[in-house]
């Protein structure tokens, strides 16, 4: 009994220290991630204040994705599709206490070079909706990748809010691309019901892991919008 109580106290003590350490790491995290971005930038801005209650929507945009020294350009030219996974989260600021997560929205953009045509295919996935566009020049592709995304997730309840955006850029193998397309096209439920395929699932995981170990580029950017107040 005494042993159990002592164990419980030890747990609480270590858990407290772990939480403090974790919080400290979390605080320093954003700066590190931003610094990692190098030439690619993620911007989360607010639309103009056009609603009576002051609510504003986020406008998400990435910049310099295909700058002349971009490693993503190298990846594309090497035949590797590049996936951009965007996520926008709505956070309610609560002063000194933890902020509250309200909701989020996600979408994907996959870019692939078609070497025979020397064209770039840009697939945008939003839920089950897909859009395919092709660009013959890097200039046009770069401009298309710099489109802004206005996400209709305006909060309606009164309070002080901000948006947290993240962009994860990864390279995909061909099988990943097929899997991603099937998943985003809505095949996931069938795959789940039929059971995970041992070879496929673990082969895919191993492939991704090896791709990462092999040094193929992977980048994660985060950014926050300014605070705004909903009256």
């Amino acid at each position, binding site marked *: 009994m005494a042993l159990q109580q002592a164990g*419980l106290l030890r*747990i609480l003590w270590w858990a407290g220290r772990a939480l403090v350490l974790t919080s400290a790491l979390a605080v320093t995290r954003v700066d590190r991630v931003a610094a990692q971005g190098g030439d690619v930038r993620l911007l989360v801005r607010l639309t103009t204040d056009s609603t009576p209650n002051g609510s504003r929507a986020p406008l998400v945009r990435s910049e310099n994705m295909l700058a002349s020294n971009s490693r993503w350009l190298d990846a594309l030219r090497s035949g590797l599709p590049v996936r951009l996974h965007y996520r926008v989260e709505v956070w309610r600021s609560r002063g000194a206490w933890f902020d509250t997560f309200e909701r989020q929205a996600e979408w994907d953009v996959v870019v692939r070079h078609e070497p025979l045509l020397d064209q770039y295919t840009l697939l945008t996935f939003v*839920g*089950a909706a897909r*859009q395919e566009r092709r660009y013959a020049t890097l*200039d046009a592709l770069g401009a298309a990748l710099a489109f802004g995304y206005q996400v209709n997730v305006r909060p309606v309840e009164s309070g002080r809010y901000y948006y947290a955006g993240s962009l994860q850029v990864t390279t995909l193998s061909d099988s990943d691309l097929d899997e991603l397309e099937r998943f985003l096209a809505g095949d996931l439920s069938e795959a789940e019901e039929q059971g995970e395929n041992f070879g496929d699932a673990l082969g895919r995981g191993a492939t991704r892991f090896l791709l990462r170990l092999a040094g193929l580029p992977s980048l994660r950017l985060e950014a926050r919008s300014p605070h705004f107040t909903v009256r």
Partner: protein
Amino acid sequence: MRLLAVGLMLILVRPLWGQDSVIVIDPDARPSDSFVRGGPPPEVVAELISFYNDSSTTRMQGDVTLPAGTRFEGKLALYRGSLRVAGRVAGSIAVANGTLYLHPGAAVDGDILVVGGRLLRSEQVEHRGTERVYWDAAPVLRGSDGLLALRERRRPLGEIATARTTFQAGRVRTTLSLATGGTYNRIEGLPILFGPLFEFRPMAGTYARIDLRGIVRTAGESDLRSDFGYVARADLRFAGRTEFGIGGRLYSEVEPIEDQPLTAGESGWSAFLLQRDYRDYYEREGVSGLAYVRPTSALRVELSLSRDAERSVRATDPWSLLRNSDRWRRNPLIDDGHFFVTGLQAEFDTRNDTERPTTGWLIRSRFEHITSDDIAPVALPLVVRPTPPTGGGYATDRISLDVRRYSRLTPALRVNGRLRADGWIAGDRLPIQRRLSLGGPDLMPGFDFRAFTCAPRGFTDPSNPALCDRMIATQLEVRTRLSLNLGYRWPNRDANRPGRFIGIEEADLVFFSDAGKAWLAGSGAGQVPVNRLPVLREWSLDMGVGLDAGEIAAYLAKSVSSGEPVKLIVRLQRRF
């Protein structure tokens, strides 16, 4: 990702020249499975081809510059490359899959058409005529005769099949596939599934499917099971404001007894690489049917009935990469017989991602009423259970609950919690194939595999079967993303660019703690009364820390309530 993304809709705003400068994403729009293929309008492409191929047009290819002070008369067309104009063009210009630059002082007395590129114009440019620009690539090819031709579109990426072949016959889509069965184990080796899938959509919102799969087991012969199995399934779904459906299965397959301490995939890798199979199995052959309703996208309620023959299977000796000369752990005997199972299952899932959720709930609960008239029970000590009635009238009830909560305290700090409970609630005691245990990499990683099996003192069985009536476990973890840079960065010849990094750049730092208890219900020594849960001080506790790089994770876990040494656990997916 599944949840909100399903409701998203892509709306493209086209302010100028058919281009998209802002894309509006509306999460509250009605779900749509539309596929929009962008591109210049066909009539514009036809006009471009006609202009380019016109015999009066001067055709160029590659990068061309018309310097300041020069003058060009007539129709000018360029295919692939960049056309830089600083002089005067007295005529129309068309650019196919290239960029048109109008530099200061440039003058164009005619129409401009750019398809598949951009028009970049400076100040002080004089232009008399229309101007049309389409960024999307023009689907054209330049032939050996120097003329442009329309290029037939290749198959879209989504139609490229890899491991299966699909063809359409009338309104029925048929898919022939060959796949593995989801795991590698000491009973079947690598089960291989093959067969056709027929899909039929008679009308919008209705989906029918017949899936016929044969199973070949690669582990070799066994006197207790066949080398072949099968699963035949038929489903009919109706999607609308409320989705509902019915289905039926006919099967002869090998099933795991517990779904922990590792997932099927991880257990398969462990068996294949290390000859360590963390699951036990039995064979079942029978028929089942189900009906379900999904009143909201997050909630699914299912009623199922099944009648099958369940029987023991023996471990064989499939090959493994390491320790191949070792002996596999025996597979336990089960209570053979025919079982009739009525199941009621509810699932509430608001997670934002099925593989790596960061927010949302997953609540999964299942109630089973199990009966049998010919159960042939394995002899177990009476403290584990009284001998079930063998002449008919065997009936037992079981309930399971899995509650997971994923939450983010700040954008960088996540806290996840899980409660897992399972076990007997009424009637005769559970058959062996539905009994429980704790300990091992998943629920209680600080403890040995099957550290808690409820086997009484003196009871020895090399298969180390799970014998508990009930179990409960909680898991709590705190995660934050770390920049690791665990590896080596190759120097790059270009000083302005970082070199290639070999290793892991980022990972989740995970602090976790688990608590749980598996027990026999009853009034005997060491048992917990039927009508209550164990008090907290009777639970076993562990805690640990780990790094989760997504595709692979390593954890150190230490039991707190006992003196077991620190354990290193490697996982290929999230803990929960």
